[in-house]
């Protein structure tokens, strides 16, 4: 099950914990993988870890020309893209009353607009191939909201609405578009929390622990698979039960 041999995947934000796990999971299932991020040396490290069938394509998703160049480079490097994982995301947290225009714009650009531009660039070849998987990594806060994250939550909710619309446009061509919505996941950011803070978080999670990047990667692997071909326009929440939506 979930054999991706011969499939070509592009994963953005592959230098982060979740993106790295996604790239590793797709690669382990047999896919050829293009990994993108802002830090070239981190990408090279990941490539060294994964071995062959890996292409490093650094990109700055806050820049439109760079996004378009990424789409073209990935297609050129692999001869196409069957699976697109829009995982890259940034936060610029702050209460609405204090939020700067730039904090709003940059989060929208990286989290939402780049996902749309990359999806759009992949659609034509995917439509010709009558196969495609687009997976957008959203967040539980895109559905529940979170104080201090008006911009981030809006961008993540935007991904869900975009995915549902696109899913309806291209479903007849064998292309599925879905979201994975992580809850609290173990990352360098949550590592920095003290025990009291960690307890406060886990108290709100029925599973009693934070999730791991591999939990998210497994969901992405499923949605990438041939077996998930009848699943489209959905958001798969991976959050230990902290929000049941």
């Amino acid at each position, binding site marked *: 099950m979930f054999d991706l041999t011969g499939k070509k995947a592009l994963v953005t934000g592959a230098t982060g914990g979740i993106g790295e796990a996604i790239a590793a999971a797709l690669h382990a299932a047999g896919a050829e993988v293009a990994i993108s991020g802002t830090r070239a040396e981190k990408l090279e490290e990941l490539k060294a870890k994964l071995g062959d069938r890996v292409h490093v394509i650094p990109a700055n998703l806050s820049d439109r020309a760079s996004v378009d160049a990424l789409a073209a480079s990935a297609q050129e490097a692999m001869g196409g893209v069957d699976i697109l994982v829009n995982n890259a995301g940034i936060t610029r947290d702050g209460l609405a009353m204090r939020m700067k225009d730039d904090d709003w714009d940059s989060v929208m650009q990286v989290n939402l607009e780049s996902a749309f531009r990359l999806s759009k660039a992949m659609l*034509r070849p995917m*439509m010709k191939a009558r196969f495609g998987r687009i997976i957008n990594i959203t967040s539980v806060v895109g559905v529940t909201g979170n104080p201090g994250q008006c911009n981030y939550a809006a961008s993540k909710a935007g991904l869900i609405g975009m995915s549902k619309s696109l899913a309806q*446009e*291209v479903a*007849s*061509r064998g292309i599925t578009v879905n979201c994975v919505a992580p809850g609290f996941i173990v990352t360098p950011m949550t590592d920095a929390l003290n025990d009291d803070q960690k307890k406060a978080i886990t108290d709100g999670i029925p599973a009693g622990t934070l999730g791991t990047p591999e939990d998210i990667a497994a969901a992405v692997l499923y949605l990438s698979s041939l077996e998930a071909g009848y699943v489209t326009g959905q958001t798969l929440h991976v959050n230990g039960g902290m929000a049941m939506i």
Partner: protein
Amino acid sequence: MSEIAEKVKKIVVEHLGVDEDKVTDTASFIDDLGADSLDTVELVMAFEEEFGIEIPDDAAEKIQTVKDAIDFISANA
């Protein structure tokens, strides 16, 4: 048949998977050749690529038959 007409018909046959003899000048993509709205977008994009032209949305909407496509491309290519 002009070179443009030949190319247009070839693209239509390839994209819609229909028999060549059905692709007459008056054939409507949607009513006669079984295209859906997404097919027509794909066709317009294929024409743009083949002939190196840009077909604006309002012009694309008016391209409903094979002849419409040939006429637009002949006038703009």
